[in-house]
């Protein structure tokens, strides 16, 4: 298992980590698994043993299910519309909820071919994976520092970081493009990756900081008493606990990186080889003169599916991370 992220481990407990200790570090103090103690209110640290409290009344359970079904229907309806329009015969110009008389995949084929999707999806996958990996790499230590250390300028630096979370980069993208041109990065993969890592850094750091800060201080203190360095505390105590937080963050970062449009448009003005999926989609949605709702919808589905797949995949990891918490008790 890798030391940096902790997302790849199966159980992610301190014991597993110890078993992989390399010879040179054998003297490293053993960090014990979380102590069983009653958490202070509002400062919970242990994942619940089961995902739900089982003894909700039957009526409540029914109501809960009903509400969730309703919410899912609302969440799904616009997507279903898009999907149905995409499944129409070519040139049908269907709108709204119109059910095709027979299922056609022609629109998907057209979108795939004309949008050069095989290339675009590969590019997007590469970029999004790089953005997620790099961002996790830099925001875990940063979140740790903000959550667990006291140091001068912590407040102002956090406020500065929040700027990155809120700034409308429609405005900054033009100076950014001149900067990238100056540095010779325009039309390269770096133009797609680095600015997004910068923007994601803010979200990731806040997220990890929030998570690390919620872990009871006592856990860290126990590790320190055992003589662990700060880096060891991060790796052996905090990271194993943060699998669910990391996977959620990874899913969100992936989503944002995948859907990023304006940066990709402006920072790669003249290199069709680097067209990303949202740009390929925009080839259809941004065309005001010859647009075809069926092909556009098909393209939209093609772009959305990989993100959904990644999310579902990470969700399984997310749930297994949760279960590993239960095993540890």
């Amino acid at each position, binding site marked *: 298992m890798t030391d940096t992220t902790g997302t790849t481990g199966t159980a992610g407990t301190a014991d597993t980590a110890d078993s992989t200790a390399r010879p040179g570090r054998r003297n490293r103090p053993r960090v014990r698994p979380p102590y069983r103690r009653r958490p202070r209110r509002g400062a919970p640290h242990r994942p619940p043993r089961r995902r739900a409290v089982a003894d909700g009344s039957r009526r409540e359970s029914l109501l809960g299910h009903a509400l969730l079904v309703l919410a899912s229907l609302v969440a799904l309806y616009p997507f279903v519309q898009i999907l149905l329009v995409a499944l129409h015969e070519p040139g049908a*110009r269907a709108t709204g909820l119109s059910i095709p008389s027979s299922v056609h995949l022609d629109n998907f084929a057209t979108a795939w071919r004309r949008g050069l999707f095989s290339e675009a999806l590969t590019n997007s996958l590469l970029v999004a994976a790089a953005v997620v990996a790099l961002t996790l790499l830099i925001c875990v230590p940063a979140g740790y520092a903000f959550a667990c250390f006291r140091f001068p300028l912590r*407040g102002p630096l956090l406020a500065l970081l929040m700027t990155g979370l809120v700034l409308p980069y429609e405005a900054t993208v033009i100076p950014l493009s001149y900067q990238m041109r100056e540095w010779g990065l325009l039309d390269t993969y770096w133009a797609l990756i680095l600015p997004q890592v910068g923007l994601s850094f803010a979200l990731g750091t806040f997220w990890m900081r929030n998570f690390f800060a919620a872990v009871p201080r006592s856990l860290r203190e126990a590790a320190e008493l055992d003589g662990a360095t700060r880096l060891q505390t991060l790796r052996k105590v905090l990271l194993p606990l943060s699998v669910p937080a990391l996977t959620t963050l990874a899913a969100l970062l992936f989503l944002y990186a995948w859907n990023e449009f304006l940066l990709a448009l402006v920072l790669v003005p*003249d290199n069709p080889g680097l067209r990303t999926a949202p740009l390929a989609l925009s*080839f259809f949605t941004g065309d*005001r003169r010859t647009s075809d709702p069926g092909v556009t919808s098909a393209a939209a589905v093609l772009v959305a599916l990989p993100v959904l797949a990644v999310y579902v995949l990470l969700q399984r990891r997310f749930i297994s991370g949760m279960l590993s918490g239960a095993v540890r008790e």
Partner: protein
Amino acid sequence: MGWWLRGGRGGEPRRGVGVLAALGCVLALGACSVPGAGGAAAGQELPGGRILRPVGPERVAEHGRTTLRVLADSGEREFLKRLVARFEKKYPNVRVEVETKASTDFFKTIVTTMSGEHPPDLVQGNQGYGVDGQLVRAGLLRPLDDVSHAYGWDLDHPGGTTDQLRWTPDGTLFGSGSLYGISQSNEYIGVFYNRSKLSELGIRPPHSWAEFTAGLRKAKEAGELPLQLGNADQYPAEQLLGTIQAQKVPVNESRAWINGVPGTTFATAGNREAARELRGWARKGYLGTGYNGVSADDAVSKFTAGKGVFMIAGSWNAPAVGGKLGDDAGFTVPRTADGRTVAAGAFGLPWHISAKSDATDAAVAFLGMMQSRTGAQAMADAGRLPVVTDGVDMPDRLGRQQAATGKRLLLGDGQTYYFDWASHSMLATIGSATQDLLTGRLSVGAYLRRIERDRAGFLAEQEAKTRGRGGGS
């Protein structure tokens, strides 16, 4: 638990507060110079030399292996595919590399792309201040007066049709000055109709404005939706106004206002009458209800699904309309009371040659072929309407109708251009104002004033810019 923005409170060393300030200064230094400094200025002589006669294959061949880079709106893709094949056959030493982008993306990036070190040789722009004006002002385009003369384009368009592509060299005013572009495509607003609907209602395809408006009335009386309109994108109602206005106001008067000729105003009797008629249509229910919430795209879909007897829309909608309605689709521009053919319209997106191009000869040859009958046929084959229509086979009945009307329009110099060229914010201004006019939130007088105010403010700014530059040098 720690709140996520808590920090920096009490007990922390305050040393190094200056670190942040220092950091800021370093950053700022990197950023501080007048924006735009160091940009390339336009050279004086014509890039690639003066063109005296049409560029033939021999002359292009002198340059050896040449790559011609073309950047265009995605609407040109089918056309370019056909044209490039013919061009590469005739000019075997040239390889044409075409890149296309969807309209919205294209307009967002074209200006910055052209300002790069190695911009494409041949690009499309857009009439008006937002794109063409910018490109001319920054000296990024090669003037084409010599090319126009060599190829006889000025003879093809004796009237003011090419004025839309003429700019003063500082890019502050258009309508006169050097020619900076040319287009192979003719686009204008006309009336689509549904033949089977018409025959059901006993209406004949309208030839004149009077017949058309009578048809609207008759359709309304029969309980049909007379005019399909989707105005959520705000520009379609502007096209309605333009279509009505073209009937009432002389072409030169419309153009003069759009070109910013001093002393012109939007609040003319003709415009007032046009605005009043448009508002009357809305009041009488000719436009149905809810049009401000329907997109232009969806309106086309509705029209082809049989909702609406007429639809006033751009000629470029022909493939979408004809593809669904087939021979039921008809198209016309109703003649004015004195028998002229006038319409809101212009060339399609114009083509420009980059001032930094090192393949000017090939680019000129490409433009030449584009404007020729070969290019026109490629346009027709791609389902679009070319400027040159003589001897060109249009693919279907709708196309033939559009070609005939288009020819009449160009011969009579009847394109009135579009109102939104008048200032760089006019598209938004007239779009929202027209919505307010239709819903009755704006009186006709206030409507005209709001539009005029936008243009007056813009012209004052432009004038100040021109003066500022003149004083500086």
